[in-house]
């Protein structure tokens, strides 16, 4: 009985392990090896830390990473600020029948590929776009305004793309919040803002954290949105990686940047968890 259980356990686990090993672990080992290889002055391939050293020596790489991380944090924060009232409305205020409908509305944009969604934004916002057409028509502006290719638009695009990944964990966290806690706080003379700060947010903390991790990682690792909506000025770190692999054909440097992105973003999340006094296991559960 026990051995039978063990066999079936490993049998069912096998595809997952294979998937993890073949598609994630194996390529990463190869990339890790690549990232420590480089040409010496003679043009021979040798083991070296140069690829990692470049990141810290060249300000452009380092600054691009800091900029990317900061904007990813800003994106996460904006997404949270927008998602909180949305999920509160869906869980606590909307009627049960409207709730399902509203959730579907949130899901709907994700049936379209990200590329198409971003092009949709571009059609709206570009100089000859829909928005400018109406602005010119109504006489609000005399000259068309270029609304694409700046940081604000890029962050807006990232927030739009990540919204769902914040709303869903917040909804499930809020569903377990007993209404009477909110009423009790109100009965004890708390204002709406105090209720939000002392009752709702502490209760939703695991949901907020898991949403924030997902949104932060998605924003940090996003390539399409910064590239298309932020244009040449976006200076997103993923573009640097892309450039190394494709433009400079320097796979060793690209692999090193990839690992640095992984390590640094994990570091940021670790600091975030420490600051909010949480453990990854609690958040994932």
């Amino acid at each position, binding site marked *: 009985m026990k051995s039978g259980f063990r066999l079936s356990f490993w049998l069912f686990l096998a595809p997952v392990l294979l998937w993890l090993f073949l598609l994630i672990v194996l390529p990463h080992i190869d990339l890790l090896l690549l990232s420590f290889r480089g040409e010496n002055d003679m043009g021979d391939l040798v083991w070296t830390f140069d690829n990692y050293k470049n990141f810290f020596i060249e300000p452009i790489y380092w600054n691009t990473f800091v900029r990317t991380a900061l904007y990813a944090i800003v994106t996460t924060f904006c997404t949270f600020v927008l998602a909180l009232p949305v999920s509160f409305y869906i869980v606590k205020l909307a009627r049960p029948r409207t709730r399902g409908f509203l959730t579907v509305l949130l899901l709907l944009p994700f049936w379209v590929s990200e590329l198409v969604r971003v092009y949709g934004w571009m059609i709206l916002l570009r100089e000859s776009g829909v928005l400018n057409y109406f602005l010119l028509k109504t006489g609000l502006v005399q000259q068309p305004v270029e609304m694409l290719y700046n940081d604000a638009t890029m962050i807006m695009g990232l927030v739009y793309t990540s919204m769902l990944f914040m709303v869903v964990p917040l909804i499930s966290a809020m569903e377990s919040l*007993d209404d*009477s*806690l909110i*009423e*009790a*706080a*109100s*009965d*004890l*003379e*708390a*204002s709406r803002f*105090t209720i939000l700060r*002392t*009752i709702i947010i*502490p*209760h939703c903390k695991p949901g907020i954290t898991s949403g924030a991790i997902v949104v932060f990682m998605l924003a940090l690792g996003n390539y399409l949105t910064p590239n298309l909506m932020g244009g040449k000025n976006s200076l997103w770190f993923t573009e640097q990686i892309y450039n190394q692999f494709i433009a400079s054909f320097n796979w060793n440097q690209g692999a090193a940047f990839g690992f640095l992105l992984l390590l640094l973003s994990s570091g940021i999340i670790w600091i975030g968890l420490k600051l909010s006094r949480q453990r990854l296991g609690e958040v994932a559960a």
Partner: protein
Amino acid sequence: MANDLSVRNLIRSFGDFTAVDNISFDVPQGSFFSILGPSGCGKTTLLRMIAGFDEPSSGTISIRERDMRGVPPNKRPVNLVFQHLALFPMMDVAENIGFGLKRRGMNSAEIARRTETILERVDLPGYGKKQIRQLSGGQKQRVAIARCLVMEPSVLLLDEPLGALDLKLREQMKVELKKLQAKVGTTFIYITHDQSEALVMSDRIAVMNEGHFEQVGSPRELYSDPQTPFVARFVGDNNVWSGEVTESGERLTVRTGEDLLFRTRSHESYEKGSRVDLFLRPEAFRIEPTDSTDLNTFEVDVKTILFDGANSRLLTVMPGGHELLVSLPQNRQFDHIKPGDRILLGWHPDAGLCFKV
């Protein structure tokens, strides 16, 4: 004495349904007032309107002579102990109790002092640093009450807070709540569907049914002198016969379905021939009375003995199949009674009460 709460012509309707139907009552300062009714009678709606979570369709609620119309819950001098207590799980006991005081902008030293004082008053001294999940049911109860009492409300509202406790603890908390109320002197308004809770603790009880008050009175009045058939059925146990008045007067004579003639009293005199329900408490019966002058007497068969200590009863059947509950005093006098025995029962006409159907 001044009234802490006055409610006048209060109505609350949801569409066609009237949950609270034209209720008026006063609660004097420092009293323990209960609202007793079956679930769905509108008592929670009434309480939520007093607390400010719901607005009346019409009528007024005033607390200490101040009209509460349009005053939000966080500005009312009342506090509510919730049915499931609603203690904040993300805070410890002291933070829970200090929550309201902190909202008033009191400094932390004063909050700590008052928190400790109120914890002593509810017999939980030194519990401030405990987490909510470490407390037992009865302790949570007392923390929830302390959290409200520390706000020094004019009126403390309690929404069936004993419902979630097990029987033994509930019995104990009943007594404790009553003692606590006497000690702090705050006006308590307690809603419950459990008549024993209401009877034990209250100074006055309002019996509520389908949105209106059937009767307001002391526990003794409700028990021994119910004014409506609903109160007679709902408060305490009662045996019921339906019958017909054969002789009216100060004492009515009623012919029951079994063709027995009973003399009994009623609040108003009913004409001969009117259909009535006759109510009689289980403890009104005298088993095998030695002197049966003035008593209504008849014979029944004992079906079973429902032994429950001091609250033991006989389940008896009348010849027509009508079942009666009879109190069985545990003074060993009736130890000889066994199921299947035929016994004589008697009751005094003053003990019964008739209502026209």
